[in-house]
């Protein structure tokens, strides 16, 4: 089914409309965003329910990262609204970590925001890292990690504290194939746990079984449900 972005019916948070059943955890409605005179998002809608995975795809400059930042509340749209039920976790495309802290120190810092004690944050961070086939070194600073491992750190920080909605902006850049598969296994696990997951990607392969795709390519500008 394909819905023109501007005509998809609006739904409120937590509603269980129609045959979908699960509550809506993320609802973006009528998002419009322009940079100078160039409109990158034109009335885009996105609804993600508990236990759903959505992919945002599109060519370079189509507004994928902008859409995710708007959903995370890190950028303002010119028009439109975003409603979120529960807590958000966000993984940026560019590595947004502190170069001179170790991964363990990142876990305790981000864990403090989520209300976790240092020992609990460290334990949970290492558990999540292991699911991405990453054994966290105690002394290595973030600046000395490889690009792929820094991105794993970003994914772990986004998932720390058990957020209800996960927004992941091309999170597997620099991953080797094994880590890429591990990442998607994590995504399926998060879906099973009832989280709403949104992944920005420009490489949607058969492996990436998602529940819906928001295609922001200029020629379509539509939302499709698989």
């Amino acid at each position, binding site marked *: 089914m394909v819905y023109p972005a501007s005509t998809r019916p609006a739904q409120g*948070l*937590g509603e269980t409309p129609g045959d979908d059943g699960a509550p809506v955890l993320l609802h973006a409605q009528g998002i419009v965003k322009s940079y100078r005179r160039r409109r990158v998002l034109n009335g885009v809608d996105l609804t993600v329910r508990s236990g759903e995975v959505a992919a945002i795809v599109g060519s370079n400059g189509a507004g994928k990262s902008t859409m995710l930042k*708007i959903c*995370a*509340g*890190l*950028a*303002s*749209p010119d028009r*439109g*609204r*975003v*409603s*979120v*039920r*529960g807590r*958000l*976790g*966000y993984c*940026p495309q*560019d590595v*947004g*970590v*502190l*170069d*001179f*802290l170790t991964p363990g*120190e990142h876990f*305790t*810092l*981000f864990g*403090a*925001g*989520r*209300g*976790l004690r240092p020992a609990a944050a460290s334990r949970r961070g290492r558990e999540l890292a292991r699911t991405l086939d990453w054994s966290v070194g105690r002394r290595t*600073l973030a600046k000395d990690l490889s690009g792929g491992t820094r991105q794993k750190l970003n994914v772990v*920080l986004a998932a*720390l*504290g058990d957020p209800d909605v996960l927004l992941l902006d091309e999170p597997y850049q620099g991953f080797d194939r094994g880590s890429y598969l591990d990442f998607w296994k994590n995504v399926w696990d998060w879906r099973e746990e009832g989280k709403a997951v949104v992944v920005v990607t420009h490489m949607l392969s058969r492996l990436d079984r998602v529940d819906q795709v928001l295609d922001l390519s200029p020629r379509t500008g539509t939302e499709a449900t698989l």
Partner: protein
Amino acid sequence: MSPTFRTLRMAQATLRELTRRRGVLGLLLLVPLVFYLGRHDEPGQAIRFASLGLGFAVSAAALFSSVGGREIEPRLALGGFRPRHLHLGRSLALVGAGLAVSALYALLIALDQDVRHLGAVVLELALTTLVAVPLGLLLGLAVPRDMEGTLLLISVIGAQMVMDPAKDSARALPFWSTREIITYAVDGAGAGSLAPGVAHAAVTAALLMAASCAVQAVRLRRRAHMQFG
């Protein structure tokens, strides 16, 4: 989880980041020493220049820390930190580090100079740190990159060095108190006075802290289009 816990975690992370940048830290520590040694033959001037060098070094550290945190702070705010936790935590770390450096220079001056009121010098170095931290944080929040902030900071310190402190307009500069208190400490009560200097530093530090805190709160505000259920 208490707000104090989050503030202290932020302070701890900032302090670790700062102290592990050893090359930058060493160069920043060197600035006041170069200023001091450059005018070593004139005790009053040497202390004034060392103090302004300290003000520059601490402000620059705060500026770089503020600009360096720009990427991660929105994520931390999204993850449960309030802007005030982040701002206060960063400020605490920088003030702590700055006071440690000012103590080193106070010790150097105590051993190397014959000053009438050594206590006033110690107080002045501490107040310079308290002004320098929010000044650097504010510059870091106001400019797009650290290069622009550094140039602005050089302009402020340069103006402070060349402007006659007796002029009323000199009081608009953030480190006016530094020169005023040192004049009192070195030349005695006839030449300068302690109370106006301390008051100027206190008011300047409070205004700069309030301004930087407000800019931080605006930057990390919850956007109007977001609704949480």
